[in-house]
């Protein structure tokens, strides 16, 4: 299979997955109690006012018709409108307009975490694999395990208490207006990023260590030892190249998590990212918004996994140069 046909195949599979996700999300959200009209009117709803508002919002169509409308709009590049901010007015916020700043924020945070966590975690993981069973390895193992085992929200709260409240070094929340640059931006991102670096790098570290150690039982590693290749080169040249595939996969999964799964951290630091937006959208039954977020998460996941696969292919000459 050539690279191009692989690319086409993967794209087709990705689109298929997106389609399945959109159906799942639609079914899932349609079994939720209440709709956006219920949420807007809340406690003060009456059957009459609900009916009137639903008619106004176009919610009185049957579910499958609404899905088809959404799908056709999507295919023509229109994500639709959120009911956000519109009240009973006829003008809602275009979803793309709501998503863009959130997406930028998410990418900023995820990017900041990735830039720090990935090189750090891979390095430490390699060091641990280089000297397995030593004190360094034990220390890394225990620390990463300890950090993995603590719920994110506890890590985040402890950090806030110590760094923001007690020491006052950094702001306790990370809500940003989008205009911050340079040092201000770094300060705003620091606390949530630090929390996520701790969470993400522990996992990457462990997987790096495990994968490299797994490769370490291959005959070609023994051959390298018998050729008198020093430890550092065995790990960095012989083992790492063969472990890159699985490591890339773990990194991709962690990055996908940084985009879609960090709702706890976004909540604690009041960081306006995508994950919190989707939770909010579900809670307010803003279905076009839920769908849009789901599409972004799903696409991110697919793209990241695809990139990880490409990295595996590029690091593996057998896949890169088929005979």
């Amino acid at each position, binding site marked *: 299979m050539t690279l191009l046909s692989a690319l086409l195949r993967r794209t087709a599979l990705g689109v298929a997955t997106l389609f*399945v996700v959109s159906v799942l999300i639609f079914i899932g959200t349609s079994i939720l109690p209440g709709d956006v009209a219920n949420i807007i009117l809340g406690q003060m709803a009456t059957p009459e006012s609900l009916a009137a508002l639903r008619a106004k919002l176009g919610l009185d169509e049957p579910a499958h018709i609404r899905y088809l409308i959404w799908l056709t709009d999507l295919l023509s590049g229109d994500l639709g409108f959120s009911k956000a901010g519109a009240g009973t007015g006829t003008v809602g916020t275009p979803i793309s307009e709501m998503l863009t700043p959130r997406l930028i924020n998410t990418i900023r945070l995820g990017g900041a975490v990735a830039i720090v966590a990935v090189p750090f975690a891979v390095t430490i993981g390699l060091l641990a694999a280089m000297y397995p069973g030593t004190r360094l390895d034990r220390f890394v193992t225990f620390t990463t395990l300890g950090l993995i085992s*603590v719920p994110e929200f506890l890590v985040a709260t402890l950090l806030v208490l110590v760094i923001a409240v007690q020491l006052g070094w950094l702001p306790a929340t990370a809500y940003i207006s989008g205009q911050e640059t340079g040092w201000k931006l770094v300060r705003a991102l620091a606390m949530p990023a630090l929390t996520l670096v701790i969470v993400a790098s522990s996992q990457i570290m462990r997987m790096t260590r495990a994968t490299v*150690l797994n490769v*370490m039982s291959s005959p070609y590693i023994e051959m390298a030892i018998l050729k008198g290749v020093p430890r550092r080169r065995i790990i960095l040249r012989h083992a790492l190249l063969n472990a890159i595939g699985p490591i890339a996969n773990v990194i991709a999964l962690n990055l996908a998590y940084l985009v*879609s799964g960090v709702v706890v951290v976004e909540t604690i630091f009041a960081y306006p990212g995508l994950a919190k937006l989707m939770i909010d959208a579900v809670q307010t039954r803003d279905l076009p918004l839920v769908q849009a977020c789901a599409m972004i998460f799903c696409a991110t996941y697919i793209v990241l996994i695809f990139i990880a696969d490409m990295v595996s292919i590029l690091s593996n000459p057998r896949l890169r140069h088929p005979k």
Partner: protein
Amino acid sequence: MAETKTSFEELPDAPPRRRLRLSWTGKLGVVVVAFWMVIVVIGPSISPYHEADILDEALFIVPGSDNPYPETDYQPPSAVAWLGTDYLGRDTLSRTLFGARTTIGISLASTLLAYLVGVTLGIAAAVGGPVLDSSLSRLNDAILSIPSIMLALVIIAAIGSTIPILIVLTGLIYASTVFRIARSLGLDVKVSDFVEAARVRGEGLWWIITREILPNVAMPMATDFGLRFVYVILFISSLSFLGLGVQPPQSDWGSMVRESLSGLPYGSIAPLVPAMAIATLTIAINLIVDDVSAHSGGRLAGRMI
């Protein structure tokens, strides 16, 4: 010919089966896990109070006087409550002991369910032909790509949050990761000669899956089971963070941390005790898993110079 046979027997192919031997960290892991398993069984019966008990204000007397403390929440450790009280004035120790059963029970049941579903479908996808495989894989990709918290949020909002629902939900969410592993292991085993031997014999799918494939993917899956179990505990605790966890007044460790998080600024240990419980259990499981996987890989690392 007969004599020579006796004097030069065929040498065994491999040294006798290597038995799993734990390092000291692995042993420590076993001890800790065993400890918690004992607590699961006897915890509620040795606990000083019931998990739902809100301790009477009269119990807390200011030393050297007859005056009660004005508060019963976030009390420091004392003779009344050895590990202090939580945000409602409940005994942290009792709730931790009761919580062991809930936390470990739910997580274990969820993980088992995830395995039941994930392995069944994963193996079915591996052996069941391309149509089944690709439809299951697409569905699985779809589920994996939806953030699990968000899935949980929708389902719990739709049908409520009882313990059985929590177990089924978590089980299904984690089944998708198990599916991936089971499928790839299944694909490996499927092409092995002993499975072909069964196929040539004319064995049906059920036999091939249950007798030929499953026993052989059991070991690699077992190590993954430990890790998955840990993730499930943490996942349920993040659900608690969003208020979607077990029903009060039942205690599970994740919810306990969450509920009493507000005690941290006052130096209360109420959120730290259950956090420590989670940490000790998950670290212990991982230490055992590490030993099991070290058993199979990385043996050459020690020979590097």
